[in-house]
């Protein structure tokens, strides 16, 4: 890309100074193709769905607080956990990572937008309307054989429960169509990420110098392209079953219910990493800045990300041990699952080694990163336990599994996403988030998280099954469930502090300036918030830490980096 100055007078930056009206405001938000605005819109809808889905989780925990409880009906309970899982994965996790990718990748590689801006807007609106479609199921055909209302088949929607004979009405169709819509949006994002990262890097930014954040998002984009189609294909088959009388998953006519599980988890397990690697990506940018050291083992980090991306495509059946697989399959999937532990271990080692000997600043983004390291390690260890087929036969479909994956997704992913929000909020808004409120948010969320999910491991070990509506007293589960439910209250208080923090900081937060953290990647070289064209002059890069070179001309990185 040539260093041509952006024609400043013709940009919308000048137009924005004109008279402000709410119609113009709405018009701009609906028609925008700007990657930063779309990125923020993705993150805003992710947070809105997060609140909706969090309330569902609160209802689930309230129902399970006491034995023999009947706070909600069993039907409503099934809808709660189905909508909670579906929303969190497809309408919180996916939009959030799409938002991070959209906002940050062009800024980090010195580009002015994503490769396909209009396609990008299409992806956002598909995702949003997918979510609206899912939630509109609550209002649809409520009288239809008691099967109107929201989907109630679990977020994995196992066949043959989803067949027309067992799920009449429209709820399952809402589930299928809304997810196909949002998956199309995610596929568009993935295509955009790869085309942007491969084609729009600024002069001098070789792949070797590209920020690790962008590298990891390339791996994620590849996984989305390869792993989402199995879900889409299986959902199309299910639609054919339900509407045209096909027999893919219809066990009465040689169809195969287990085939659904294979296709679903062929998507479902890579999906775990599609959600998790963006978390890794954020942590990889934040830990070095707050340890005042470059990342340890840069090349190993890239290698580990790529190998996680590839290995995760071959581990899906560890979700299916309890189905009864041939023992050779059990061994294969147990070994391949444990293999993922190797590159993940490399990453945890590298993050720790980056902190080692650094001058660590314990500000809120870093606190979330450190909590992530501890909690994700524990989640990984219970993951290795569950990878062992005989152990899984005992504890599959128990609350041990629930506790395990909530440790990865809250203790791991959510922490990294909050770290990312605290780290990049100043860039996006020009205002700092309050450290004082941030620490309240952090500690309340962490204490609440542990009060909720630590006991659930033990409830699972004592045999409490997943998706159970209620349970009789006297099995030793009461105490664990009681504490877990109170933990939700503490977590909610933490989230309330976060909302307060965002509102308060937007209103009267401290001005951030271009580079509040003294960081090293290109997004901190432009103003906060960045102008629509990002960089007036396309920057030229000579090392993986271009801003370090700029700030330390006496000791630049490019003197030491190879290639």
């Amino acid at each position, binding site marked *: 890309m040539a260093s041509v100055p952006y024609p400043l007078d013709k940009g919308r930056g000048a137009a924005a100074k004109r008279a402000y009206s709410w119609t113009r405001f709405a018009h701009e938000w609906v028609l925008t193709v700007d990657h930063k605005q779309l990125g923020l819109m993705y993150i805003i809808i992710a947070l809105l769905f997060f609140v909706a889905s969090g309330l569902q989780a609160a209802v689930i925990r309230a129902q399970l607080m006491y034995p023999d409880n009947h706070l909600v009906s069993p039907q409503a309970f099934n809808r709660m956990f189905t909508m909670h899982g579906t929303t969190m994965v497809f309408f919180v996790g996916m939009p959030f990572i799409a938002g991070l990718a959209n906002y940050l990748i062009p800024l980090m590689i010195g580009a002015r937008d994503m490769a396909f801006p209009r396609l990008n807007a299409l992806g956002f609106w598909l995702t949003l309307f997918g979510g609206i479609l899912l939630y509109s199921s609550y209002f649809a055909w409520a009288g239809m054989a008691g099967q109107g209302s929201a989907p109630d088949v679990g977020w994995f929607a196992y066949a043959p429960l989803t067949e027309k004979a067992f799920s009449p009405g429209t709820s399952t169709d809402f589930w299928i169509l809304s997810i196909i819509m949002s998956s199309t949006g995610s596929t568009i994002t993935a*295509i955009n990420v790869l085309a942007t990262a491969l084609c729009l890097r600024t002069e001098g930014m070789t792949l070797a110098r590209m920020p690790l954040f962008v590298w990891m998002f390339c791996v994620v984009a590849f996984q989305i392209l390869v792993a989402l189609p199995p879900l889409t294909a299986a959902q199309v088959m299910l639609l054919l079953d339900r509407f045209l009388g096909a027999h893919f998953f219809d066990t009465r006519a040689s169809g195969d219910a287990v085939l659904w599980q294979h296709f679903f988890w062929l998507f479902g397990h890579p999906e775990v990493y599609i959600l998790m690697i963006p978390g890794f990506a954020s942590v990889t940018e934040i830990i070095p800045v707050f340890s005042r050291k470059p990342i340890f083992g840069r090349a190993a980090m890239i290698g580990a990300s790529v190998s996680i991306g590839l290995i995760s495509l071959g581990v899906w059946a560890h979700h299916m041990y309890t189905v009864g697989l041939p023992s050779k399959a059990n061994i294969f999937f147990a070994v391949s699952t444990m293999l993922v532990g190797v590159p993940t271990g490399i990453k945890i080692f590298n993050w720790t080694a980056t902190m080692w000997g650094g001058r660590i600043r314990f500000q809120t983004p870093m606190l979330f990163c450190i909590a992530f390291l501890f909690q994700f390690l524990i989640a990984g260890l219970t993951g290795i336990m569950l990878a062992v087929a005989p152990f899984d036969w005992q504890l599959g479909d128990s609350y041990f599994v629930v506790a395990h994956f909530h440790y990865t997704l809250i203790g791991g992913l959510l922490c990294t996403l909050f770290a990312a929000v605290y780290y990049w909020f100043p860039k996006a808004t020009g205002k700092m988030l309050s450290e004082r409120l941030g620490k309240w948010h952090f500690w309340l969320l962490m204490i609440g998280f542990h009060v909720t999910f630590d006991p659930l491991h033990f409830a699972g070990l004592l045999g409490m099954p997943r998706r159970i509506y209620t349970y009789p007293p006297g099995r030793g589960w009461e105490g664990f469930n009681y504490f877990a439910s109170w933990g939700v209250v503490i977590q909610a208080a933490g989230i309330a502090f976060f909302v307060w923090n965002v509102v308060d900081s937007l209103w009267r937060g401290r001005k951030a300036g271009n580079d509040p953290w003294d960081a090293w990647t290109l997004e901190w070289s432009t103003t906060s918030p960045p102008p629509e064209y990002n960089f007036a002059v396309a920057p030229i890069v000579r090392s993986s830490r271009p801003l370090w070179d700029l700030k330390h001309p006496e000791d630049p990185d490019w003197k030491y980096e190879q290639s």
Partner: protein
Amino acid sequence: MSTAAALPLSTAQSEVQNLDRGKVGFVCLILTEVALFSIFVTAYLFFMGKSQTGPYPADVLTVPVWGTICLLSSSLTAELAVRSLRANAKARFQLWLGVTVLLGAEFLRQTAIEWHKLIRVDGLTISTNVFGTTYYSLVGLHASHVVIGLTLLLLVFALGLSGASLHRHERRVELLSWYWHFVDAVWVVVFTVVYIIGR
């Protein structure tokens, strides 16, 4: 003005970005399409020979030689069209593009005849047995891709007839030809699975 403007201007280590974003995006699209088709192919192979009742593939399927010849040769004519466009030979481009459209349409006509026979004469529908289920979904998925490709080719053909200067859009026409080659390549797989292995 951003501070990055002050970054050192290096002439020695600049990298030329010669990747075309359209092509990269298109390869990504093909990758995800390949993944989609492989699931349907897997389902076809998985359910092969599992139908409890007839009709069975060996009884009702005949190898669609003519349709296959048409579709595969249309890839050749599409490539000739792109080359003509590159050489700015407009009439030749319209001719080869028209032949491509006709060959693609003939393939679809053959599929329609085959489906009509299967439904009317042999009584095989998508709900008859798992053979019907997997056959119609796999061949139908491919046929729907042919329809999309054909629509786009027709659009380009019409634009050319209306006198639009397609030379400027050579890159886009080339990407469309890639899509058409992809549809052809998928047919080779579908043909092998359905009419050779599955029969």
